[in-house]
C-alpha cells in the first residue's frame, strides 16, 4: 500500500492514546495508518479543519464540550466523504442507533477489542477507497458527457441558420438531433447563380461519426466550389473520403444544385433516399434515384445525376431516414407513405411551412417513443 490512511481518534480518556499507539504499532510502522488524537468534539473539529488529509474518525460518545453524537452531525460540513466509527458502551442501543442515523459507518463497543477494531477500521477504509473510486469514475463519466455535449453543440453549430435570400428560391432546413451525438447534417450555400443543397447521414453515432461528418461536410463544400456538376462533386468527395477510412464509416447524401432563374434542379445521390417532389397541384412523387454508392466505402464509384425543372409552386423535400424510420410506441415506422400523405393534395405555401409540416407529423406520430436517430429535413420551393 502506498497511501497512508490518517485516522482521528476522539476520546476524553488520556489512556487511550498510548494504548492505540501501542496496539497499532505494526500498522503505524508500515505506514499503513497514521493516528491523530483529539480530546473532545470541539478539539476534533479544529483538527479536522486544520488537516484535510484525515480519512476517518473514531469517536467516543460521552465527552465534555461536544459529545460524539453532536460531532457526527458536524462531520458532513467538514468533508462529506469522511467516514466515522463510534465507540459506545456495550449494549447502549439507543446511542448506537442515533449514531447510525447520523451517518456513522460502524461502531465498536467498550472495552475496545483491538482485533475487532482492526477489522472495523480495515472494512471502513476499504469502503472509503471504493467510494472514492466510484466518485472518480463518476467524475470521468461527467467529463465524458460534457465532451459529448460539446461535440453535439459543434455538430449543431456548423449547420447554417439563415437560408440564402434569392428571388425565385425558398429554402428551409432543420435537424433535430437524437440524444446521442449523431451524424446528420444539412447545408446550403450560394454558388454564383446557383444554390447548393445538401442533406446527409453518417453511419453510426458518437464522436467518431461527428468527426467523419465534419470532414464530409468540408470535403463536399470544397468540391462544390471547384466543380459544377453534382455527379463530379460526389465522385471527388468519395475519392477523398475512401482514401483513408479504416473505421469503415460512410455517409449517404444528396447534393443538389438549383437554379432560381430557370427552376432546374440537378441532383446526385450517394446511397441516400431519393427526394420527394410535391407539385403545385398537390401530387407527390419520388424523384428518380441516381447511380451511386454511399460515400467513403469504395474507390472509383460512378455517380450519375438527374435534372428536373420545378414549376412555380413546386416543392422538393430532402430528408434523412430519421424521418421515415421514426418509430411510434407500437414500434411502427413513420415510413414513406406517411411522409407522402403529409403533402398529398396539400401543396405547401412556403418552404418553411413544408418543413414544419414534416417535423410536426413525425413528432405527432412518434408520441412518447424515444427518438433514436437524428431527424433532418430540407425543403426547397420555387415560389
Amino acid at each position, binding site marked *: 500500500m502506498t497511501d497512508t490512511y490518517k485516522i482521528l481518534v476522539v476520546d476524553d480518556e488520556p489512556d487511550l492514546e498510548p494504548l492505540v499507539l501501542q496496539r497499532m504499532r505494526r500498522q503505524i510502522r508500515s505506514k499503513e495508518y497514521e493516528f491523530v488524537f483529539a480530546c473532545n468534539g470541539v478539539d476534533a473539529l479544529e483538527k479536522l479543519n486544520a488537516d484535510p488529509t484525515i480519512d476517518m474518525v473514531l469517536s467516543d460518545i460521552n465527552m465534555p464540550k461536544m459529545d460524539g453524537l453532536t460531532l457526527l452531525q458536524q462531520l458532513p460540513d467538514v468533508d462529506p466523504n469522511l467516514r466515522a466509527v463510534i465507540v459506545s458502551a456495550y449494549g447502549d442501543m439507543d446511542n448506537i442507533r442515533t449514531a447510525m442515523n447520523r451517518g456513522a459507518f460502524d461502531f465498536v463497543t467498550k472495552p475496545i477489542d483491538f482485533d475487532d477494531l482492526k477489522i472495523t477500521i480495515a472494512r471502513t477504509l476499504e469502503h472509503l477507497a471504493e467510494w472514492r473510486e466510484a466518485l472518480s469514475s463518476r467524475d470521468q463519466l461527467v467529463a465524458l458527457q460534457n465532451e459529448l455535449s460539446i461535440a453535439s453543440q459543434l455538430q449543431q453549430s456548423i449547420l447554417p441558420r439563415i437560408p440564402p435570400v434569392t428571388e425565385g428560391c425558398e429554402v428551409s432546413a432543420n435537424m433535430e438531433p437524437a440524444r446521442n451525438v449523431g451524424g446528420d447534417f444539412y447545408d446550403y450555400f450560394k454558388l454564383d447563380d446557383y444554390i447548393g443543397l445538401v442533406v446527409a447521414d453518417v453511419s*453510426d*453515432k458518437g464522436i467518431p461519426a461527428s468527426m467523419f461528418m465534419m470532414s464530409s461536410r468540408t470535403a463536399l463544400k470544397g468540391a462544390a466550389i471547384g466543380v459544377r456538376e453534382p455527379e463530379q462533386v460526389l465522385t471527388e468527395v468519395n475519392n477523398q473520403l475512401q482514401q483513408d477510412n479504416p473505421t*469503415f464509416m460512410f455517409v*449517404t447524401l444528396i447534393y443538389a444544385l438549383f437554379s432560381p432563374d430557370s427552376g432546374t434542379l440537378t441532383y446526385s445521390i*450517394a*446511397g441516400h*433516399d431519393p427526394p420527394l417532389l410535391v407539385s403545385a397541384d398537390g401530387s407527390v412523387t419520388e424523384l428518380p434515384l441516381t447511380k451511386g*454508392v*454511399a460515400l467513403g466505402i469504395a474507390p472509383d*464509384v460512378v455517380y450519375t445525376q438527374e435534372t428536373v425543372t420545378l414549376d412555380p409552386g413546386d416543392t422538393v423535400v430532402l430528408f434523412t431516414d430519421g424521418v421515415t424510420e421514426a418509430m411510434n410506441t407500437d414500434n411502427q415506422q413513420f415510413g414513406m407513405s406517411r411522409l407522402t400523405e403529409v403533402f398529398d393534395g396539400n401543396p405547401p405555401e412556403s418552404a418553411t411551412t413544408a418543413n414544419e409540416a414534416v417535423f410536426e407529423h413525425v413528432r405527432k406520430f412518434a408520441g412518447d417513443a424515444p427518438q433514436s436517430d437524428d431527424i433532418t429535413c430540407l425543403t426547397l420551393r420555387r415560389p
Partner: protein
Amino acid sequence: MEFSHDRSGDTLVVNASGRVDGSNASDFLESLQGMFDPGDQRIILDLGGLEYISSAGLRVLLMAAQNLDKQNKSFSICSLTEAVGDVFRISGFDQIINVFPSVDDAKQG
C-alpha cells in the same frame, strides 16, 4: 437478433433474423465473427428473416465483407426481404457486396 448456422465442406451459411440498428450492431459483428472458422472459404449470409437494417448494420456487413475479402474468402448475402432489399439498393451496397436471390443461387455464384 437471432442467428443459426450450417456448415457443409468449406461453405458456411449463416441465418440472421430480427432487426439490426445502432443498439445491437456491435453484437451483430461479434456474433458474426464468432461463427467464422479458419477453414471456411465461402460465407453466405441468409438475411431472409431480417426485418430491418440501419446504416450501423450496413457498416458491420461492410467490415465483414472487406475482412473476408482480404483473406481471399468469398462473402455474399441472399434472400433479402423487400424492405432490406430497398436499403441495399438505395445505399448502393448491392454494388459493393454480392447479393443473390437465394442460398442456392449464392452457392452457385
